[in-house]
């Protein structure tokens, strides 16, 4: 899967970093989303999709 994040839309709820910490982090300076792994493997796909679904500002886009 391939992921895009929009840190300008991100409101720092932190759900992505909670659900998929290998893929998403938060900037120390801004608190907004930082993408650690733009193309996570299949084993991480379920967590990534859940993170995208939970994201309250809809800042995560997942593509196949």
């Amino acid at each position: 899967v391939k992921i895009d994040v929009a840190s300008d839309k991100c409101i720092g709820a932190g759900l992505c970093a909670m659900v998929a910490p290998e893929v998403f982090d938060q900037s120390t300076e801004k608190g907004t989303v930082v993408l650690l792994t733009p193309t996570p493997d299949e084993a991480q796909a379920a967590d990534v999709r859940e993170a995208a679904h939970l994201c309250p500002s809809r800042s995560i886009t997942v593509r196949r």
Partner: protein
Amino acid sequence: MTEMASAAVSDAAVSDAAVSDEAASGLPFFPMERDARCPFDEPPAYRRLREQEPISRAVLWNGRKVWVFARYEDQRTILTDPRFSADLRRPGYPLLNTQAAVLEGGGARSFVFLDDPEHDRVRRSLIKEFTVKRIEALRPRIEQIVDGALDAMLAGPKPADLVKALAMPVPSVVICEMLGVPYADHEFFQEVNEHIVSREVNSGTVRDGHQELNEYLVKLVDSKREQPGDDMISRLLRDQVDEGRMTLEELPINLLLLLLAGQEPTTDMIGIGTAVLLQHPEQFAELGTTQDPKFVAGAVEEILRYASINHVGIRRVAAADVEIGGQLIRAGEGVVLVTDSAARDEEVFDDAAQPDVHRGARNHLAFGYGVHQCIGQTLSRVELQTVFRALARRVPTLRLAVPLDEVPFRHDMNIYGVHSLPVTW
């Protein structure tokens, strides 16, 4: 004189006016009553609304008509639609009794009652204080605070009130340390808060308490300016106010929000969550024996879903004409999203009326959704994980000291939970 007289009108009197208005309009009163025999469930009328009338009309305490949304999906849709405003000064916003009181007094608004771009600017100046990593770094200290409170409870007489022994002090000490507010003053701000979340308090009392707490925080900010410490207030002054992202005038009201929102809801979740677990001893026991932090985290998500403490819903006012679920909502009309109904929506949660710590669903609306979703949710999660895990591990024989129907649930408050929880072990 007129102002004093109107301040002296209690909300109980206003409620009476609303009841006669209800009779005139034929609309039900919102929020509806819970069934005292099923204290963990949403008001029974919400099931009928979900199934038969997911978008309906009701009247509030002040006689204002609102749209009531009972289903999960509609609520998520509205919470991500910027045409619904969170600005409580906008005409038509469905105010709570206590918000109306504060507003009448000319009280300032914290960022949760602003729309973008103002909301976004203030929120952005706060979020780095609440990242998952920052909060995880506090976990050892939170464990220490929980253990200290538990030590004291276990050393004291039985039965004990778990609310006083654990649910109140833990979140209060934690948020005070984070912000840099002296915990020694907790009785003062807890009393103010008790008025702010009450459905029945005199509006003058709410207004005065709010103002007094705001003034207290203005003074505290001044003293941090003179003598900065290693705390959030000092950092916000240095990194946000001095850098021009937030004004000095905006700081106290936002601190007031963080101070109160950091305590009351977590206190209520600890109280009612413990009550839930004690009704399901096998689930409580599993929390005590597990070695898996992910299981503990999952159990907390389920308690957040199952035991809804938001009794009054999430509120917005339409800033434009919007069609939702085939219903036209006109600009200026108020909407209420009934999150305790969403938590029981069978379209989303199988067997929703049953708590199940193995459910593994994190998509509840306990922290809201959309750009206003709770900024302190990670902190709340870590506190709840620490408390429930410590209780189940250290006090496996914990049980209610009175029958469930003698536990005083908070039917009289805008935020639900238990006033006290008599326990023994």
